[in-house]
């Protein structure tokens, strides 16, 4: 098994202020479980590969339930924001933030500093930037300088390169752009079965290939001031067949900022795997929780039996 670089190996704390028994662990850093609310027009929706959306409930109700169940954070993504108005989103953020005392990240359509300011003042703790960061990378630095690195999460949607080596997972057959062909034609291109896999950054909800290598882009956004990376495998997203752990591990082992793995969670085993093999700092999931297939509490209990440090 590949070892993840920040395994703060459980050991007894060097300072014993309490009255704990010798040897009891008190220095654990928990892996985070983050439910994601994909919102559209004030409702939570869920689809496969960002299409075929179906209704999953009221954002306020779901947020309250997750808070009660022990979610470590909450992410709200307005998946229609790039195309539609954001008045509904602001109201939803206010409503969700009112009774939420865990960190809240909001994304979708954040393009300029003013968008970030409005979301943060509506009650978000962090904003997620995706498409706009690719088109105008400077926005990352501007938001970080104004609100601190902790306030900016850069969302990266990545799709595995078709001919690149990797697991047996069926790889999306989407059309690749001319820019991507150029990337392939470069010296590091033409991946074969024997070369390490590569992933391409896609934007606009996965509809637009960018020609950017996901790992290179992740390095760049860290330099620009991103506080965390929300890394979604577009091949796995919505399929509930497991995370692309190779993608997560590749990015998480390179960067010095936390990586939130997203896309593909279908079972507690998948989440254990993305922490252990995928080296993720946090796991994001939606469907697995919305339809009450699994509760956060039962998931965390399972993770603990697997040796994953979680907050219960």
């Amino acid at each position, binding site marked *: 098994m590949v070892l993840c670089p920040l395994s703060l190996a459980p050991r007894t704390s060097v300072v*014993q202020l309490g009255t704990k028994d010798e040897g009891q662990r008190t*220095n654990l850093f928990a892996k985070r479980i983050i439910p994601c609310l994909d919102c559209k027009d004030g409702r939570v929706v869920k689809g496969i590969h960002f299409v075929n959306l179906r209704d999953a409930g009221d954002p306020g109700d779901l947020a309250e339930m997750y808070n009660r169940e022990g979610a470590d954070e909450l992410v709200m993504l307005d998946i229609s924001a790039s195309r539609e108005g954001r008045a509904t989103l602001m109201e939803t953020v206010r409503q969700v933030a009112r009774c939420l005392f865990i960190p809240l990240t909001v994304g979708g359509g954040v393009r300029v500093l003013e968008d970030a300011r409005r979301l943060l003042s509506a*009650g978000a703790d962090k904003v997620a930037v995706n498409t706009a960061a690719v088109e105008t990378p400077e926005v990352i630095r501007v938001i970080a300088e104004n609100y601190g690195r902790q306030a900016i999460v850069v969302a990266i949607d990545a799709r595995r390169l078709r001919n690149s080596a990797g697991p047996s997972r069926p790889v999306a057959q989407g059309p690749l752009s001319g820019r991507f062909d150029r990337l392939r034609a470069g010296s590091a291109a033409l991946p074969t079965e024997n070369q390490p896999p590569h992933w391409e950054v896609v934007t606009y909800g996965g509809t637009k290939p960018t020609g950017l290598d996901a790992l290179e882009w992740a390095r760049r956004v860290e330099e620009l001031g991103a506080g965390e990376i929300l890394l979604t495998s577009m091949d796995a997203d919505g399929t509930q067949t497991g995370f692309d752990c190779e993608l997560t591990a590749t990015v998480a082992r390179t960067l010095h900022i936390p990586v939130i793995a997203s896309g593909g969670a279908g079972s507690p085993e998948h989440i254990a795997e993305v922490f252990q093999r995928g080296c993720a700092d946090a796991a994001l999931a939606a469907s697995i929780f919305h339809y009450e297939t699994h509760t956060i509490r039962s998931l965390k209990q399972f993770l603990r039996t697997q040796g994953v440090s979680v907050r219960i």
Partner: protein
Amino acid sequence: MIAVLDYGGGNVGSVLKAIEYLGLSAERVDQPAALRAAEKIIFPGQGHFGAMMKGLAERAMLAPLREAFAGGKPFLGICLGLQALYESSEEAPGVAGLGILPGCVTRFQGVFKVPHVGWSQLVLRPDTKLFHGVADGSFVYYCHSYYGPVTPEACAVTEYGQTFAAGIEMKKIWAVQFHPEKSGEVGLKVLKNFLNL
């Protein structure tokens, strides 16, 4: 009146919201006179140590804060509001902190992921007022790249590569490095303890 000190950079809104949720009221304060009139002061900090000290100086908040410390007015620093109590910080060399605690705030070394973002456990000194009713080993939410060294005033510590001051209790001065307003039930309990002091 409970004052939530606004120096132009902290997350005042979420602290106010948490206090309101606990059934009390507090005011956002950015004027020295209002700070002097307050019965209790909460100082949530966020961002850069240098910008914070500059923000406090520009708003003429340093003198009323020192008066509050000298006069025994209950004070709770949060995150950067804890770091402000030390003499200095590696984040802003040459900028003086409030100097209530000895030492320099230091950047995490030897850990792969900085900032320390997420939930870590507290090791608590028994019988502290601030953590009354909070179980030793409780998880709280952190988000920081710098930490305050452990001094005798530390009533809670956390380990993330280094062991650092998670909580300070010093007569009427309290401070926490984690975010009580983002730490779920445990965090609300800590805030409530301070508000009920």
